[in-house]
């Protein structure tokens, strides 16, 4: 039986109400009317009852099976307490303890459990049972929450009977401004099913308060963000990446700049959980894209205490600070995915976290050669931060399929595109020096004779994404905090289980 506190231990159960205690010596059967095998064995139950006390718990119809005084178990309390997975389930008790059990209809097995022979004459020798209602999807976790010990150690907040749970989350400051899924025990237990990691494992200290954060706390916030359990390993990896000192989550949070964490996901997990790297990849409509990034930000807000107007001092912020996450399009085998370019082995999944904001479009429908397109993209990339801010910010260039095809068809791979863009982004110092054209912003006039790169080497990352039609690409601008890449830079972390 699965519990939150320790997956290898049985869930301690609350004591049974006296009225439903099974006989200390005799038989218990769990059944449901909706199960053909349960209906098949009704005559057999009568035979069993003649040899000893029999209690039949009915999961769906309190009148079934007729004539055997069934006990209504539509609440599934007894089914849960007896860990029933299949109906019918026959259990024999002796001295108040379970001594034998069988499921479905198997004459030999029923005879072994009851010690009687010739049961069910005229019935087939064998017929499999049906699933217990206590094991319907999502039900088991609800039963643990209701009748067992969920093993969740986070503080319980019991609302007034008439309280609106969604409003209660707003009232307590747990929301980023949008409604959240109320974190009930059953939802948290379901979320924890998404990882093999123990709920009490400490993932790290979340800035700004450097609060110790467990897998359980991340699961709670993932519930609130709207994640499915299978997203949880991605969320955990994103939190770990954000906690890497060189990601500088504290600084990114408290900056007056627009930027926040931007998550790019690579690898098989993106297909497994149904992320969208295609049409409208950066927009609305895909649950995984929209909730994974939100979960990270919820952890920073709720566990770390990082709230706008307090430690978060962004002048404007940007909508992506609610959460911004998308996968790379890895459909072209000639393309080296971002994660592999950053050291993750082929076939593995990873998150890469950037300090970024955006999106700035680059519309070019006339370039036909890679050289033309590189020069054209460079013109748009020069605007990152400010056309005269150089060697300071990072950026992410999202190549659409149609733009990428121009490079691919000419034999340009990731490294060649990066080199081409680096060359195209060398700016004559005389054009971007302070005061030129009456604009004080710019580089030191002493560099007027230099060719100055817009980005430091490695400061421009390329990711493939977007729908099949559209000769435009997208730019995510970075953060001035990355001007010292030895101190602050994007982080890639492999996704575990």
């Amino acid at each position, binding site marked *: 039986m699965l519990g939150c506190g320790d997956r290898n231990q049985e869930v301690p159960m609350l004591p049974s109400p006296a009225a439903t205690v099974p006989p200390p010596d005799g038989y218990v059967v769990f059944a449901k009317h909706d199960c053909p095998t349960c209906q098949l064995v009704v005559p057999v139950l009568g035979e069993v009852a003649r040899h000893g006390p029999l209690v039949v718990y009915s999961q769906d119809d309190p009148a079934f099976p007729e004539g055997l005084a069934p006990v209504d178990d539509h609440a599934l309390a007894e089914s849960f307490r007896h860990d029933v997975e299949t109906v019918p389930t026959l259990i024999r008790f002796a001295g108040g303890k379970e001594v034998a059990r069988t499921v479905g209809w198997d004459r030999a097995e029923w005879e072994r459990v009851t010690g009687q022979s010739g049961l069910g004459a005229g019935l087939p020798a064998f017929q499999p049972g049906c699933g217990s209602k206590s094991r319907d999807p999502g039900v088991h976790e609800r039963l643990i929450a209701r009748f067992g010990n969920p093993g*969740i150690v*986070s*503080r*319980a*907040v*019991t*609302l*007034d*009977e*008439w*309280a609106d*749970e969604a409003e*209660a*989350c707003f009232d307590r400051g*747990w929301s980023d401004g949008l409604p959240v899924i*109320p*974190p*009930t*025990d059953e939802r*948290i237990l379901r979320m924890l099913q998404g990882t093999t990691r123990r709920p009490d494992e400490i993932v790290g200290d*979340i800035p700004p*308060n450097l*609060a*110790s*954060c467990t897998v359980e*706390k991340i699961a*709670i*916030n993932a519930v*609130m963000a709207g994640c499915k359990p299978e997203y949880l390993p991605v969320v955990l990896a994103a939190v770990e990446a954000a906690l890497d*000192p060189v990601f*500088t989550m*504290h*600084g*990114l949070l408290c*900056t007056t700049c627009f930027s926040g964490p931007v998550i790019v996901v690579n690898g098989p997990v993106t297909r497994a959980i149904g992320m969208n790297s295609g049409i409208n990849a950066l927009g609305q409509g895909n649950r995984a894209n929209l909730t994974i990034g939100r979960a990270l930000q*919820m952890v920073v807000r*709720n*566990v*770390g*205490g990082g709230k706008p107007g307090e430690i978060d001092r962004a002048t404007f912020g940007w909508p992506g600070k609610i959460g911004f996450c998308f996968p790379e399009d890895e459909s072209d085998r000639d393309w080296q995915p971002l994660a592999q370019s950053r050291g993750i082995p082929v076939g593995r999944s990873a998150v890469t976290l950037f300090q970024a904001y955006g999106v700035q479009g680059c519309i070019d429908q006339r370039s036909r050669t890679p050289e033309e397109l590189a020069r054209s993209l460079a013109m748009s990339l020069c605007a990152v931060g400010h056309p005269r801010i150089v060697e300071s910010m990072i950026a992410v260039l999202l190549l659409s399929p149609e733009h990428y095809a121009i490079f691919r068809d000419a034999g340009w791979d990731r490294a060649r595109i990066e080199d081409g863009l680096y060359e195209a982004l060398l700016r004559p110092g005389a054009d971007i020096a302070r005061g030129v054209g009456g604009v004080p912003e710019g580089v030191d006039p002493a560099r007027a004779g230099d060719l100055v790169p817009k980005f430091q080497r490695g400061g421009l990352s390329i990711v493939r994404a977007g729908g099949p039609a559209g000769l435009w690409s997208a730019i995510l601008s970075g953060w001035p*905090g990355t001007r*010292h890449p030895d*101190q*602050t830079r994007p982080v890639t972390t492999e996704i575990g289980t």
Partner: protein
Amino acid sequence: MSGIRLRDPTSETGSQRRARLAPPSSLQGLTVALLDIGKPRGSEYIDRLEIRLREHGVTSKRYRKPTNTRVAPTDLLQRIAAETQAVVIALSD
């Protein structure tokens, strides 16, 4: 009767507000730390302040964080606390 039970998503830690130390009534005889947090042009502000303090006969010592994007390293904070009695921080660009 009670209603739905939720679980607290926060760190469940309370914050304790501590009163600031009263500022010194005079800087005479004290050493003032001038901390450049690493933002652009912070040094220009520190330069001016250093000159003005010297004109008033006040001793100052300069310190610098490796980057503004991180909190100050513990050893830097310990040095400032050990060597000075007041701090001026150049916070912004």
